[in-house]
């Protein structure tokens, strides 16, 4: 009798599973979870995605990769007079950038967002002990003048092309007490209310506020009652963490989650393509090429790779288009250089090197390499044209690509052996200390107009002097490239900027320090009824415009 009663209860509760309200709540599945909600310390993609709903940057790049105002009324430029070049002591030049905040901005607790918050954020972000590592550093400014409640002038230490790109403002009335209490190294990281009291509405100035936070599990957001922009289309947005992507797919199919975030924090592209094949009409699928650049680093010190003809032959022998077509249904554009074709700095005159096996063989022959009896090329000294290629072990797609490329190169008499390592070992040791012998394949993310300083600048080659903190893992060093990087970071004329960018891309294409593969496409899987959703493909993610999302 008791068993029957229990069974009846079980079935009754099971039946209730489908009785959900329709489209008031948007549940989004994410395969990663933010380690913190503080937007500026050790920022991760998934944190940027989560925080995009609740706290806004002053400026952001939109879906067309144009810099726009989110919190400001007008983007500062030299033309509109909100940015000016000013003289600094010692004959140097700096800049004065005026930020005019929208007049009706309020934090989630009803307090106004003011220029004092900008000054507070600048002061905190400029202090190394706070640990800020956001993409648009506050320490570019040496002084901030608060003109009135809605206007602040930031004085920059030099003329910089990124002068009108600024990140989130933090609420002084909430976070100020933390800093005032203890400003020793690490104290802010451990004390910030974004981690200690994340459901405090005063922390957020976006269209939503966080109403429930379960670390590692889910974040629940509801409309910010003091938001003055477009009224959000959902009463609740839930970010649910489902780390296993097979389980994430099952949750999508069962309706437990409505959509899966793109931006690299949801399904992989092969999973999304399989899902699309099996359920073409159940969801809306969009594959947005992104700034994540898949490539193969070539180690400068490898004596066989020192000859640019060998590097070019490696590139010509790779059938990248067929690989992309077969593995990714052509969704990921083959790269000519590290600059995405969607970038305003892209130079279309730099061609994508086409697959040309006879050309590769001819080039190797010209460089003194002839096929031996085992099919592997040898030079006059008897050296075999053989390399090691590594990548992140367990990354199925990269491992598949490796096999395709290994086969491609074998046809050109180049022997490649695979040596993969866990991501921690690859990034934490092999690349960091540059202990790899020839080639390493991995992805690289950058900002829309970020110069290649970190990846191609001579000073960024990891070594003891910079405490292995640089990211120029190939060890590329070129005086012209260094000069171009310095010039472009300080150039304000868009036409001149573009010319320098074109020169850098030409240098890259000529010298081939890296073998370009493709730009990763982000799979965005959304319900067919969701309207107003616009993937961006870059670091300023779709959730920055979440107030426009609504059920159609």
């Amino acid at each position, binding site marked *: 009798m008791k068993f029957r009663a229990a069974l009846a209860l079980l079935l009754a509760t099971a039946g209730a599973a489908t009785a959900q309200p329709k489209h008031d709540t948007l549940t989004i599945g994410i395969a990663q979870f933010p380690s913190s909600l503080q937007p500026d310390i050790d920022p991760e993609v998934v944190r940027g995605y989560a925080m995009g709903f609740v706290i806004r940057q002053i400026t952001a790049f939109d879906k067309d990769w144009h810099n726009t105002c989110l919190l400001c009324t007008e983007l500062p430029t030299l033309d509109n007079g909100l940015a000016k070049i000013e003289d600094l002591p010692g004959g140097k030049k700096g800049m004065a950038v005026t930020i005019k905040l929208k007049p009706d901005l309020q934090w989630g607790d009803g307090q106004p967002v003011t220029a004092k918050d900008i000054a507070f954020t600048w002061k905190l972000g400029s202090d190394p002990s706070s640990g*800020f*590592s956001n993409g648009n550093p506050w320490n570019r400014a040496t002084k901030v003048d608060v003109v009135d409640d809605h206007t602040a002038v930031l004085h920059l230490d030099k003329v910089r092309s990124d002068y009108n790109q600024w990140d989130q403002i933090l609420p002084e009335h909430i976070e100020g007490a933390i800093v005032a209490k203890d400003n020793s190294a690490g104290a802010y990281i451990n004390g910030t209310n974004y981690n200690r009291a994340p459901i405090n509405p005063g922390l957020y100035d976006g269209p939503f506020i966080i109403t429930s936070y379960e670390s590692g599990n889910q974040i629940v957001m509801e409309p910010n009652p003091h938001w003055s922009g477009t009224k959000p289309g959902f009463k609740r947005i839930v970010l649910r963490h489902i780390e296993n992507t097979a389980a994430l797919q*099952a949750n999508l199919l069962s309706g437990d989650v409505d959509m899966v975030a793109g931006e690299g924090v949801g399904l992989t592209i092969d999973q999304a393509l399989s899902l699309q094949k099996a359920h073409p009409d159940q969801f809306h699928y969009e594959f947005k090429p992104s700034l994540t650049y898949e490539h193969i680093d070539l180690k400068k010190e490898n004596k066989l790779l020192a000859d640019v003809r060998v590097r070019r032959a490696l590139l010509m022998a790779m059938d990248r288009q067929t690989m992309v077509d077969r593995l990714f249904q052509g969704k990921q554009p083959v790269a000519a250089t590290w600059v995405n074709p969607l970038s305003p700095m892209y130079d279309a005159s730099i061609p994508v090197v086409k697959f040309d096996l006879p050309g590769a063989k001819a080039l190797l022959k010209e460089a003194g390499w002839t096929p031996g009896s085992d099919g592997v090329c040898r030079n006059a000294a008897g050296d075999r044209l053989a390399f090691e290629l590594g990548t992140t072990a367990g990354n199925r797609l990269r491992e598949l690509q490796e096999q395709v490329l290994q086969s491609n190169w074998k046809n050109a008499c180049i022997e490649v052996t695979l040596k993969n390592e866990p991501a921690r070992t690859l990034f*934490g040791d092999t690349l960091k200390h540059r202990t790899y012998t020839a080639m390493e394949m991995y992805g690289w993310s950058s900002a829309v107009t970020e110069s290649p300083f970190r990846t191609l600048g001579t000073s960024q080659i990891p070594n003891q002097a910079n405490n292995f*903190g640089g990211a120029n893992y190939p060890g590329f060093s070129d005086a012209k490239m260094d000069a171009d990087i310095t010039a472009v970071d300080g150039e304000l004329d868009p036409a001149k900027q573009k010319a320098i960018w074109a020169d850098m891309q030409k240098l890259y294409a000529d010298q081939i320090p890296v073998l370009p593969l493709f730009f990763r496409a982000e799979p965005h899987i959304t319900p067919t009824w969701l309207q107003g959703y616009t993937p961006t493909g870059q670091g300023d993610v779709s959730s920055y415009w979440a107030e426009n999302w609504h059920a159609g």
Partner: protein
Amino acid sequence: MTRFILRRVGQALIVLLVMSFVIYSLIGLMPGDPIDVMIASNPGATPEVVAHLRAIYGLDQPIMLRYWYWLVAALQGDFGFSRTHSQPVLEVLGPALLQTCKLMFASFILSVLLAFALGVAAALKPGGIIDNIVSLFAFAGISVPVFWLALVMILVFAVQLHWFPASGISTVGDGGFNDYLRHLVMPVTTLALANTGHFTRFVRAAMIETLRMDHVRTARAKGAGEGRIVMIHALRNAMIPVVTVMALSFGSLFSGALITETMFAQPGMGKMIYDAILGNDFNLALTGLLFATLVTLLSNLVADLAYGWLDPRISL
């Protein structure tokens, strides 16, 4: 008895101290640190910023020094700050432990009940139809991978039948008892099925052996009923080896439900420890693993005490 317990507690403390050193050193041997991975994905990670962050997180200190600082603070009740959750370790550990306890106790009780019922039924007639069916079920439970079982459960009961939710611990905006129960059904069943196979085999083997003993034969000769023979004369004796196995399993349950927790998005201890190790979150990984060690030690102590209760001839 008191002396025995005090001696075992003392041993447990020494084991915990040694384990803390070993775990900390092993995590420290892993190449790189979290900041290294950050460099590849964060345009703001200049060498200067990286150096500052390493200093703030204490990653620039020698590992032995970091361990010493941790030990001194831990002895004062401060287990440090979790880097991957940005909260004090105990605040992260609490909810995860609660969630794991719910999942583990429910699945443990279910699997023990099932194992005893099936194991005893199978042992009554070794080689019979029931024994064969139970053995098939037990071997299936042992050999089927948990992630596969979990996925099948999700696909059948969540995707196809829509009986139970595929993930999470409650529905946002609901959170009632029925809702909570519904979220627990599939992970508990998956874990229970995975454990029942092992337990059933042990119960069956122990019962077959016990039922052949002289005292059982004597009870039968005296005319005792089959039910009394099984429940009173055999089962209690058969429980000694089974209790040992279950005690060991109980300890590992606190750190071993990683797959189930990951598949059903249940934020428990297994997943927390795994993520902490991968994320180089020394404080959280260490505290979590030490807790799992402590539970294993305590459950073994309980098993030892249970021996004395089950068989008074066993002296502690």
